[in-house]
Structure formats: C-alpha cells, structure tokens
C-alpha cells in the first residue's frame, strides 16, 4: 500500500496542468469569470485545442484516437480539467456515442463519424429520455418504422442536454412495438438538421438553457445510420451505462467550490467577526471537507482496484451518490454566505447586464443560480434513488 502517485504519474499531472494553463482560451475564461453563458464555439475551440494535442478521447482504443493512458492517468486528466474549471469536453460525443460506434458500428460508420468526434467537428446530443419514461428508460415510445432504406421516426425526447448546439443525435427508438420493453429498441444516429427535427428549449429553474425537448415528426433516417442490429439497440444503451466514469465523483469540482467558499467566508463580515470565524459555520466547512476527503480516497481506492485489473462495477453508483450530495452541500453552504441579502441573489446574467456587480455584495451574485442548478445532479443521469436501488441489488444481493 502506498498513498502517493508514482513519479511518472506526478510528472504526467504536471504536464497536463501546464498544458491546460498554457492553452486554455483566454476569452472563454473571461466569459466564465463574468458569468456569461458559453456558446457552441467556446466549447469547441477548447475541444479542438485538446484534439490537436491528441487528448480529446483518452479512453478510446489507440487505433481510433485514444491515448493509451492508464486508468490513473485518465483520472488525473479528468481531475485537472475539473480543477481548472474548463468548459467540458462534450461527453455525449466522446464518452457515449463514440464508444458505441467503435464497438458496434460498421467500418463505414466508424470512418465517417469517429474522426469528426475526435476532432470536435461534430457535436452530439443524446435522445434517450422521454416525457413518459424518465428513469424507466425502456418504456420509451418514440417509433421508427422501416420504409425501404429509411426509417420514419416519430416521437418526443426530453432533457436533451445542449441539443441546441448539436449537429447529430443518437436516439433510442422503438422498432418493434410488439416486443417487451428492452427488446424491440434500435439505436439510430440522426442528423439534427433533418426535416422534422425541432429543438425546443427547456428553461430550468435557475433561468438557464441547458436542456431541451426534441420533437421528431416524420424524420427520415437512412438505415445505414442504425448502429448494430435492428431491435438490439438496448445492447448499445446498456454498454454506455458501464462506460468511462472518470470524474463522476466530482471531487475536483467540489474542491474548487470549497476553496472558493472558504475564501468568500473569510471576506464576509466586519474584520474580527468574519463568517469564517463563526465556530458553527467553520464546523460545517470542516465536516464537508472531511466528507470530501473520504470520497476522494474512496475514488482512488476504486481506481487502484481498476488499475489492478478489476473492472469498475456498481461502486460507481456510490461515487455518484456521494459526489452529487457533497457538491450540492457545498452550494448550500455557499448560499449561506450572503446572509440576509437574499434578494441580492441576483443571477450572474442580471448582475453582468446591469453592471450591478460593481455595487452589490459580490458574494451574493450567482450563488442562488448555482444552488438551484445543482439540484439537477441528484436527478439526472439516474436519480440518486435509482442509484440506491442499483446498489441494493448489486452490492447487498437484495
């Protein structure tokens, strides 16, 4: 047993940290600092820089553009990206549809789609959830009917993250309505510019536009854009659930947020009675930091097991549960900082637009946005209740 990363791993961390520091686009950083919503080009400009370095799809097989990194190296890379608070590399492209295509796709599909994902030329969105399905994914009702060398697709998807930017979408659709749930589903790649595809924004409670409804009305999809066999799409969907989860515990995100919170708490209040000096508030910080440390070493422990050849199992559900709980908790504590300036919790956008940040209590700006927005963490990606169901079955044998 030993706690340290190896000399090589530490050198690797230094290398990626330097790379990020030196290459992250200054204009994107400025927008983030000012609380301006990022646009498609902001995300992609960073993706392209990473792709040029050859690191945009580290977990992929080397033949398709992967880096050949160890699990520990991938973890370090994910952590450094979180630590630097970069615009995310769109996971729907690199972690979800990419692996499905190189695992189940035809040679033509691989050649057509993979290089553009690696390079950041295509933006992918995920058409899984439906208004009537949610966590019960297999209850989906979007229909695809074969018509010669096309499918005609009709239905509605929802919670489609950043679909407003997407060039392509991967969709689960029902091709055999008579089959039982998981059977009869196919996995289609759909050009988002196809006639009949409509993307409608869903504004979340923090006022942001992150998710969308996607309506499909008589959308013609060439049969060649089906991945794997007809009615066997569930195989592709299932594979995703067990795929790359580096960073799922959000440890570096939480560390950054906790660091900011500590700084804020040290500046609020008159000198001598800073919020950071309040024993009750300080204890809350101590407790969440201990929780975060426990999560961090748990992730490392699982990582070590993975490096030693053990496949990552349902323990990732635990990392997801605790990771989201802790990150949410930090946002709760941050919400306490502005004290009674409740109504000053103006959104970042409002503050920026009105030049308000010049006069207002800076600690108040955007903290409510973040708190509201992060409620999604325990809901999306398989709610924490679903994760507990999974753990109950798999770990406890219940």
């Amino acid at each position, binding site marked *: 047993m030993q706690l340290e990363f190896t000399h090589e791993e530490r050198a690797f961390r230094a290398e990626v940290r330097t790379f990020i520091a030196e290459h992250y686009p200054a204009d994107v950083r400025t927008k983030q600092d000012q609380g301006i919503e990022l646009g498609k080009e902001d995300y992609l400009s960073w993706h392209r820089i990473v792709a040029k370095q050859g690191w945009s799809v580290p977990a992929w097989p080397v033949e398709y553009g992967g880096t050949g990194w160890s699990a520990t190296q991938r973890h370090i890379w994910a952590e450094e990206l979180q630590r630097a608070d970069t615009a995310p590399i769109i996971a729907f492209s690199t972690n979800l549809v990419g692996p499905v295509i190189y695992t189940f796709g035809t040679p033509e599909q691989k050649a057509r789609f993979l290089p553009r994902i690696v390079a950041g030329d295509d933006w992918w969105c995920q058409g899984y959830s439906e208004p009537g399905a949610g966590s019960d994914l297999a209850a989906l009702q979007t229909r695809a009917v074969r018509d010669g060398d096309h499918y005609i697709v009709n239905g509605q998807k929802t919670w489609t993250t950043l679909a407003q930017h997407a060039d392509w979408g991967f969709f689960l659709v029902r091709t055999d309505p008579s089959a039982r749930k998981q059977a009869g589903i196919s996995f289609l790649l759909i050009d988002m510019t196809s006639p009949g595809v409509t993307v409608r924004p869903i504004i979340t409670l923090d006022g942001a536009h992150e998710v969308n409804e996607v309506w499909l009305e008589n959308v013609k999809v060439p049969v060649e854009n089906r991945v794997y066999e007809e009615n066997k799409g569930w195989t592709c969907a299932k594979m995703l659930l067990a795929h790359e989860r580096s960073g799922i515990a959000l440890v570096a995100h939480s560390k950054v947020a906790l660091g900011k919170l500590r700084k804020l708490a040290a500046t609020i209040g008159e000198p001598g009675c800073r919020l950071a000096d309040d024993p009750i508030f300080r204890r809350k910080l101590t407790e969440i930091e201990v929780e975060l440390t426990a999560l961090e070493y748990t992730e490392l422990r699982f990582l070590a097991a993975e490096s030693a050849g053990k496949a990552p199992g349902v323990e990732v559900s635990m990392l997801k549960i605790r990771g989201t709980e802790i990150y949410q908790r930090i946002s709760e504590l941050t*919400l306490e900082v502005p004290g009674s300036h409740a109504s000053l919790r103006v959104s970042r956008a409002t503050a920026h637009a009105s030049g308000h940040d010049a006069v207002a209590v800076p600690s108040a700006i955007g903290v409510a946005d973040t708190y509201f927005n992060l409620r999604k963490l325990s809901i999306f990606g398989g709610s924490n*209740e679903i994760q507990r169901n999974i753990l109950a079955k798999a770990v406890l044998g219940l």
Partner: protein
Amino acid sequence: MDFNFTAEQEMLRDSVARYFGDHYAFPQRQAVIRSEEGWQPGFWRGLADDVGILGAPFDEAMGGLGGGAVETMIVMEEIGKALVIEPYLDTVVIGGGLLRRCGTPRASELIGGIIAGEVRLAFAHLEPSSRFNLAGVTTSAVQDGSTWRISGLKDAVRGAPFATHVLVNARVRGASGDRAGVSAFLVATGATGLSSREYPTVDGSRAADLKFEGVSAEILGPAGQGCDLLEAAVDEGVVAICAEGVGVMRRLLADTVEYTRQRRQFDAPIAANQALQHRMVDMYIALELAISMTYMATLKLDRPVLERKRAVSAAKVQVGKALRFVGQAAIQLHGGMGMTNELAVSHYFKRATMIESELGSVDHHAARIEQCDAAA
C-alpha cells in the same frame, strides 16, 4: 388553550383565498413578473377595496379591521400559497407595525394611507456588511432644522420599485453595531438625493440598491432609540414570513403528492416507492411542526421581550429547516420536471429558499436564542 380560528378568521381566510384564486392564478403571476412593471397596482387596490386586508392588523379607530397577529398569519399564509410578490410584509406588517407603535398623528395618517392602498413601504434595513444585524448601520442621519438628512447605501431593498416610501434604519450617533443611536426614518421614494438601481430577484420580485445623499427624511420615534422598536416590528415580520413559508410548503407538499401519484414509472405510480412515501411523510411532519411553531410564535408576539424573541427565533429556526428540507425534497421527487421553470413547484422552491434566510437565517436565529438564554 385553543388553536381554532374564529368564524370571522375563517371568513377572512376564505375571502383572501377566493380573491387570490380569482386574481392571482399562476400563469397570470408569471406574466406579471416578466412584465415591465413587475407588479399589479390593480391587484393592490383590490386588497384595499375588495378584501380590505391592508387594514387587517390596525385598530378600527384608525380605519382598520381590528385584527391582530392571527389575522396577519392568515393573510401571509395565503400569500405564500399564491406566491404573491406585492409588498404586504413590508408595508402592512413591518411598516405598519412600526407606525402603530409610534402613536403620533403623522403615523396615524400614514396608516390611513396604507389601509387605503395609497402608501406602500419598502424596508431598507440592509447594508453591504450588516448581515443580519439591525444595528449594523453606518448610514447616517443628521438633524437639519425640522427635518433630517440621510446619507449612505442601503442594498437589497425588497419591493423598493413598488413603494411610495422607504423605511430606513439610520444612525444618529455611535458606531456600526451599537444598539444605541439607531432610529427609523421615512423617506419618499421621489426625494431629491435618492438614487436607485433596480433589479429582479431570483424569486420573481424586484429589489433595488438605494443611495442616499443628504436625502430629507422624517424621524419615527425618539432620536437614537429606535432599535427596540425596529426589533419588535421586525419580529412581527419574522413570524409573518414563517406563515408565508407555511403556505409555500403546503403547496410544495400537495404538488409533490399529486405529482408522484400521477407520474408512472416501471408500470406503477412513482408514489408506490416506499422510499418516496417515507420522504413525503417526513415532508408532512416537517410541515406540521412548522405550522405549530408559527402558531406558537404568533401567539407569543405580545409576551415580554426575551420570551418573544426566543419564541420568534425558535419558529424561524424550525420553519427555516423545514423550508430547506421540504423544498429540496419537492424538487427531487418531481424529478426532471422539478428542474423546469414551467411548473409552479420550482417557483415555490425558489421562494422557499429565499424565505429561509430573509430576516435571519437558521444559524442567526439559533444564536439569538442562545443570546436570550445568556441574558435570562
């Protein structure tokens, strides 16, 4: 011991609920908060003319309904249920409470204006570094003949864009933090030297940061001895906002129960999940306890100072915790739908979150209880 409402109080609740039902449906509210004005002068006028609740807590001699804290509680709970953003709390409860205690002819005149719907108040008590301390005041007031001159910065003044007058706590002597030397003042919103930067709040209302540069003001009460007065009025406000929180939570719970019964997953309503049922039971329990504490504090507002403060702060602690728990659970149990701006539940959640810390957070009020213990 009696926790039942009188027939008159039940009638008051019914008439308020009916009026809000008719004039404050959720889609209408959403349209209003997105509008230029951000509030409904006509609705306010109706509160005066149609339901008469702007006079609820004032003596009949002043033209009021002769009600008290219980009537305020009833109105505020309905305000919570309907997510009303108009400034009832600041105008009638806190402002009215302050003026009622002044007992001067000018105060009576202003109360008359409140009852008639013509005077609307905003309560400018916060400064950038005051946190929850009413005596954390640097804004100064200097006597100038028969008037006073106010200078300083007040921020996060809720409802200021809707108000005709602003109540300001300012300092006539001493340093920030001293209880002595603070008084309440009244400033007309159009006064010379008063500049305002307005903005929407996250829960659908409007607020402003106010800059006072030698603004002419009337003093309320004896100079420099206003802290007790302010605290008494604010305590009424704290209990009132607890009642608003109760109204908000009633809707959060009801909507969640309804949603989980409708929403099906894995061939059953999601309410069939025992883990969700137990969460809703805990929401119910949190709500019931919050109701009890709001009743208790409402009925203790006229007790001796230490007892009043303890009761009020205990209620805010209980209600504040309940708001956090019930609000988060409501969103979680609505799943993705809870995250959208479309459903009412997310707006109740946002208001719940704001009430948590308005007029003092859970930690602030817990510490205040401990101060009372130490002083007892």
